[in-house]
């Protein structure tokens, strides 16, 4: 019986959430396609992880090798393609993460299998794999079909599927590493941790997040004043950090911080999923954006379709009045 493969992603001593999310989706896929769910785990001294994964999958294939201690796409590609050629899984799921985007495309080329990236849904029916992915920063969804093949590689967007624990009590199969030599052309050296200190936006009760709607650095102080009036701090989406207007300790989202304040006001933030991932669990979300179709309005409790600069001055005034 053929399989659905899920590649385990772990970093600095932890299995990353995306793995369990993919296993949950993979289980549903396996049931529908009458296949078996297999978690694939590479690393060094990671038997503990294999136990955790066995609760989610029918089988865990474990490959331990000191050359697999830290993620190296080249090493992973060699081991994973070896397993795929042997097991011929119908679909191999990999996270659409920094880890997955460094591996899946070249893996697909080397195996001659079609690849669909950053998928938010997938279905295999009548011998055809159909995926749903987002385009244009999340403003459009596209349903796409993959060329028919023996097997498929799919990368899955983070936090798209819930992770549900089951007690599958799967078997753990240890396989010897097929790697012989060190990978010379690409080497992991070390992690660089975020600089300590700075502002801790995760501790703030009130956050005002700014994004692409801010056109010039000189526009930021008036927003900061509003934040102060509300007893809160300034946060932002990626473009503001890319421009160097705020430091990255203020960035909310998948490449920044996850926050859960009592109030999050999004000013000129369109709501790309990378940002939404970091703030969607805030208690109250108010979004102000000129574009009535901005995805942020699908996350916010209250929305205002307006030029943020027309709203910020009266808002500061009214808040001050009510503070009394």
């Amino acid at each position, binding site marked *: 019986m053929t399989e659905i493969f899920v590649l385990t992603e772990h970093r600095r001593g932890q299995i990353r959430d995306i793995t369990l999310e993919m296993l949950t989706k993979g289980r549903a896929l396996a049931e529908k396609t009458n296949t078996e769910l297999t978690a694939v785990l590479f690393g060094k001294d990671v038997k503990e992880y294999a136990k955790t994964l066995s609760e989610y999958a029918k089988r865990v294939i474990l490959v331990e090798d000191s050359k697999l201690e830290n993620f190296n796409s080249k090493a992973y590609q060699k081991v994973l393609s070896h397993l795929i050629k042997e097991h011929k899984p119908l679909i191999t799921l990999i996270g659409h993460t*920094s880890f997955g985007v460094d591996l899946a495309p070249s893996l697909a*080329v080397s195996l001659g299998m079609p690849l*669909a990236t950053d998928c938010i849904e997938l279905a295999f029916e009548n011998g055809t794999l159909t995926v749903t992915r987002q385009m244009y920063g999340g403003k*459009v969804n596209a349903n796409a*079909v993959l060329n028919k093949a023996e097997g498929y590689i799919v990368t899955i967007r983070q936090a798209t599927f819930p992770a549900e624990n089951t007690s599958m009590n799967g078997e753990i199969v240890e396989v010897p590493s097929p790697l012989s030599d060190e990978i010379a052309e690409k*080497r992991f050296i070390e992690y660089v941790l975020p600089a300590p200190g700075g502002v801790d936006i995760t501790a703030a009760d009130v956050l005002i997040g700014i994004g692409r709607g801010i056109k010039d650095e000189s526009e930021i102080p008036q927003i900061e004043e509003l934040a102060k009036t509300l007893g809160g701090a300034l946060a932002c989406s990626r473009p503001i950090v890319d421009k160097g207007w705020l430091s990255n300790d203020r*960035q909310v989202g998948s490449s920044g911080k996850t926050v859960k304040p009592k109030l999050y006001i999004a000013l000129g933030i369109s709501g790309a999923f990378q940002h939404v991932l970091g703030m969607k669990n805030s208690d109250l979300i108010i979004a102000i954006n000129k574009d009535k179709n901005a995805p942020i309005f699908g996350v916010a*409790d209250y929305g205002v379709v307006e030029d943020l600069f027309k709203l910020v001055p009266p*808002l500061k005034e009214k808040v001050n*009045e009510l503070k009394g």
Partner: protein
Amino acid sequence: MDVIVCVKHVPETAEADIKIDPAGKSIEKTGLVFDINEWDDYALEEAVQIKEKLGGTVTAITIGSEDTDSTLRKCLARGADNAIRLTDPKFEGADSYAIAKILHKAIEDLSFNIILTGALAGDDGYTATGPILAELLGIPYVTMVKKIEFNGDIAKVNRELEGGLEEIVEVRLPAVLTIQTGINEPRYVSIMGIRKAMQREIKVLGLADVGLKEDEIGSWIKIEKMYVPPVEKQAEFLEGNPDEVAKKIAELLKARGLI
């Protein structure tokens, strides 16, 4: 250091109103402003900075119709030495794989030390062209790059991971690096600079010129249907002039004990 930078001409949609075209397989392009893909803009700047520091040349390559010339002119004005446009009606609707195959054929005979491109494109977001191109060329690659240092034929790069974390990776040249936004500050070009670039040559190559046959450029995936994402939850919209809306928000915050 000879650098090739692969760029894409894309519609700016972050703040635009997007409509699906009647056939339901693409968006309505009329009225949208096109420019260099944001990630490629950083890749271009990085390419020019490498040339300024280490000497060599920068060659910008794109795939598309004559409309994409404005993006190539921008590359020339910003410091690229050569510009190549790969144009053929058969290139329409290409996914990352098809695009990488076309680039591969155009690049394999060029001399280069490093290829830079954006980590992803803001339109389709595949995040795959760079590593596919590298695999086809048989050279190593690193994706999501935030910093590059050279040491002989080794590039020491920082890759962006999640949650503010980065990793340092060493890669042997020649290699493909895909660039993440924020790695540098893309320079502005004056109108004069763009005007001067108008006189420069853009080399145009078609399917046969790069040695490809029509059946060799197939995509992995095909879009069947595009639609506006269904709304699971919709914000309650506060209506009125700015003063009225401000008052509503302030009262709402007061009622919840937030002020």
